[in-house]
């Protein structure tokens, strides 16, 4: 068909590759097609099941009764409201913790930036459960160390109680925020890492001081990341069970998730539980809509294709208060809880605190040489978490790219599907996953694959959200330049988008990896004899009251994850935006 043109075309011209009559020959189309199918399988399947369940009565008929009985009672509604308040409070706190630190590390000349960075990630590595326990020890109203310290220093005011009470709404919000703010931090920081300083220079030369530059230019530019992370945190804290159960119940706060769990007590009311989670799902849609409104037509392209470099901002004496804040956050999130943890792991009896004769290495010995399940579980955990993180990064990038560049039809729906799993309480999701994959045709019962599939479903939203924000920051012309030179979408992804977003992707990898090591609600449902993971063992140990071993395991986990994190940051390699001095 090209004979005519080839006859006249001189040999020197490049071979023509126009012989593409069918769009189906585009491998990218297949890739994105498969991804969307995978997404539907992964997410739509359990979610649709959930929706279906919420409308079916126990004997299989269609009914609205689940809604009336699930949501009809004022106590249940109150629980839902409380959860929303909690989500809001956690989000606000996490923003207040994460954003300043991200700014400080990515854009200022504050000292100890690397240390701060490691500190935030270390905070994240700490299993939530342990963090909560550590905080009960620290800020329990009667015996919390902080309270005791306060009383030592300032004396008691009438009663014997210090000012901190972890068993309160704000205590709960605070503890959750402490362990979720790294999400905001990582999202924001990786977005900031892509912003060319020139955009900020433009603000300062037009008279804006450092603070105004940050608030008027820098932060708005990373809005997609911040909003994305905030939505994730909001939904996540609405759907969280572990920490709330430890603190909310003693604090006397009813939450949606604690409510849902009670639907699982005998007599089982799965359908009501499903109905009860519908509002959270609807909320997800609302959130997505809000996000769209917030970001609307605005552009967020920070990687323009015209060089672009990044310099740390000299913030003068401001760096000291900032450093103090970073140190305070690290102290709160890592140093103090970790100290408690290490102490407990080295104790014979954690209840005795620091005392002579209470110190031992036996707990570590126990883990490595005595316990039958722990070593294998650690290996499994690292394996599954690593695999999940990898799959999430790749899939998240592709899905986000396809959505942002509107390659797939119905990008809005795809985006919803990619975000929905956050809104579904883990246990409910796990039931759906178990139903979908344990039996034939997949027959994944008891395999590691099932765990990876479940984790991927659950944490894909993190990857997609982060990648979507990051893709927004790329000038599409960078991609078009690839395509006009003959590279397909896959080349675009592999050679340009992937390397450009390296920091973001490494960040996502770390986030997902760490979260997987902590994931409990799905793991507890899906693990089999050969696929145990550490998080489930920690639950066991905690039920056994064996906190010393638990703490030792926490420490081991912190060490392992820190190593993975460090390796990840190594891989990220040279920052091409940083100008060599």
């Amino acid at each position, binding site marked *: *068909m*090209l004979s*005519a*043109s080839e006859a*006249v*075309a*001189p040999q*020197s*011209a*490049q*071979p*023509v*590759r*126009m012989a*593409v009559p069918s*769009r189906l020959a*585009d491998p990218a189309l297949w890739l994105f097609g498969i991804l969307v199918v995978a997404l539907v399988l992964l997410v739509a399947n359990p979610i649709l099941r959930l929706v279906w369940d919420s409308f079916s009565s126990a004997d299989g008929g269609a009914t609205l009764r689940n809604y009336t009985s699930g949501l009809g009672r004022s106590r249940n509604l109150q629980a839902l409201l409380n959860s929303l308040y909690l989500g809001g409070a956690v989000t606000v706190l996490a923003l207040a913790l994460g954003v300043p630190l991200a700014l400080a590390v990515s854009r200022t000349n504050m000292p100890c930036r690397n240390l701060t960075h490691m500190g935030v990630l270390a905070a994240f590595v700490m299993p939530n459960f342990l963090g909560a326990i550590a905080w009960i020890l620290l800020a329990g109203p009667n015996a919390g160390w902080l309270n005791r310290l306060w009383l030592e220093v300032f004396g008691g005011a009438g009663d014997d109680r210090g000012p901190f009470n972890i068993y309160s709404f704000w205590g709960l919000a605070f503890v959750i925020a402490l362990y979720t703010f790294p999400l905001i931090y990582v999202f924001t920081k990786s977005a900031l890492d892509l912003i060319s300083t020139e955009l900020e220079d433009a603000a300062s030369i037009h008279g804006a001081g450092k603070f105004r530059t940050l608030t008027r230019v820098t932060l708005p530019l990373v809005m997609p990341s911040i909003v994305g992370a905030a939505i994730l945190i909001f939904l996540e804290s609405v759907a969280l069970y572990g920490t709330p159960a430890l603190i909310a119940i003693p604090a006397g706060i009813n939450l949606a998730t604690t409510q849902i769990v009670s639907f699982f007590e005998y007599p089982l009311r799965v359908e009501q539980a499903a109905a009860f989670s519908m509002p959270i799902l609807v909320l997800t849609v609302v959130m997505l809509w809000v996000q769209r409104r917030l970001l609307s037509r605005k552009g967020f392209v920070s*990687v*323009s*294709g*015209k*060089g*672009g*470099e990044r310099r740390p901002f000299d913030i003068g004496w401001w760096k000291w208060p900032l450093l103090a804040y970073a140190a305070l956050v690290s102290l709160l999130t890592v140093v103090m809880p970790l100290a408690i943890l290490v102490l407990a792991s080295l104790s014979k009896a954690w209840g005795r605190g620091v005392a002579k004769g209470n110190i031992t290495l036996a707990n570590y010995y126990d883990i490595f040489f005595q316990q039958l399940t722990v070593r294998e579980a650690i290996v499994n955990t690292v394996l599954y978490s690593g695999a999940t993180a990898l799959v999430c990064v790749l899939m998240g990038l592709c899905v986000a790219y396809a959505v942002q560049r509107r390659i797939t039809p119905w990008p809005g729906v795809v985006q919803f599907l990619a975000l929905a799993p956050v809104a579904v309480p883990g246990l409910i999701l796990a039931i759906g996953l178990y139903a979908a994959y344990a039996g034939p045709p997949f027959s994944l019962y008891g395999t590691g694959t099932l765990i990876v599939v479940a984790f991927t479903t659950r944490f894909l939203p993190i990857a997609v959200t982060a990648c979507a924000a990051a893709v927004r920051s790329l*000038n599409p*012309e*960078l991609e*078009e*330049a*690839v*395509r*006009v*030179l*003959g*590279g*397909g979408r896959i*080349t675009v992804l592999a*050679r*340009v988008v992937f*390397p*450009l977003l*390296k920091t973001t992707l490494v960040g996502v990898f770390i986030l997902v990896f760490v979260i997987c090591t902590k994931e409990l609600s799905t793991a507890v449902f899906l693990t089999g004899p050969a696929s145990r993971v550490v998080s489930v063992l920690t639950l066991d140990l905690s039920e056994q009251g064996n906190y010393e071993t638990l703490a030792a395991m926490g420490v081991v986990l912190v060490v392992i994850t820190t190593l993975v994190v460090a390796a990840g940051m190594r891989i990220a390699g040279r920052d*091409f*935006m940083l*100008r*060599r001095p």
Partner: protein
Amino acid sequence: MPNMPNMPNTSNMSKLHLKHIHKNYGTTAVVNDLSLELRQGELVTLLGPSGCGKTTTLRMIAGFIELTAGSIEMNGQQISGAGRTVPPEHRGMSMIFQSYAIWPNMTVAENVGFGLDVRRTPAAESKRRVGEMLEVVHLGHLAHRYPAELSGGQQQRVALARAMVVRPEVLLLDEPLSNLDANLREEMANEIRRLHDEFRFTTVYVTHDQSEAMTISDRIAVLNLGRLEQIDTPWNLYNRPHTPFVAGFIGRTNLVSATLRAGCITLDGLHGEVPIQDEAARDRADARVSIRPQSLYLGTDVLGALPMGRVAVVSRTYLGEYWDYVVRPLGGGDTLKVHAPPSSVLEIGHESALSVDPRGVAVVS
């Protein structure tokens, strides 16, 4: 009539054919019924004011944005439009973006070598060609720098090298030289033309620089508000503009009212008659005429110039290479700009004879 340099000496086959293409954003038409036909090996420049739709047109040719209406054919086959769209990567084109779009994560050499990699050129040849091309754009010594460490003009040359090294069938250049100094710009323009000729690219070139457009192009298409005003050879466009817009846009000109009678032009306020070069003009009293400032002479001593009458100097500016005089016919009428060599000095208010080279005069409406 002088010979016309750079006349297309290419085959007559239509390589790229834009058929009545339209592009709307919302309700605003950005490209409006544009038709253009490029022969194999031709270099056509798109010229037009800022925001007239040049980039949009290039992007439609490359396949990045869909047409609202119309179609584009390449080698006789539709590549854009309703029905069949060939994705950019299969069009065998390459492009320089106005934003450069160089990849910040790759060194200069990697940026330039990318297209060859994608085309699976053997490593040794790829390396050689990248090296050669970097020498052409004078960046050989910066091969291992990252874009963030380059000056604006150097970045632009990376984009230029990247687009040309692959020897595309169709080369799309969006203001490829805007950030280069005059000497370099001239040199690069020559290189583009040389490579274009050597490898027989078909090139669509967007530039704001008219002298660049004049030297480099086979034909120039003048766009305005998304519409094609005129497409012609540089010589014709300059000397035979069809519309006031083209006359005003290509080079400086005087757009003045005149009377057409019996094949001759008489400017308002002057009595000299100038024969019409364009045969088609009919007699009328409200014609608009374009006269190039450098076809006007203060004095009557220039060979082949026709006397027009007398004028007075209104103002003048020294522009290094010439004087820019504004004169007014003593009989009233529109003021005229006249370029005079640095050696001819007339004070403001002085009177002088005015003569005109008739080849610089065109009836535009």
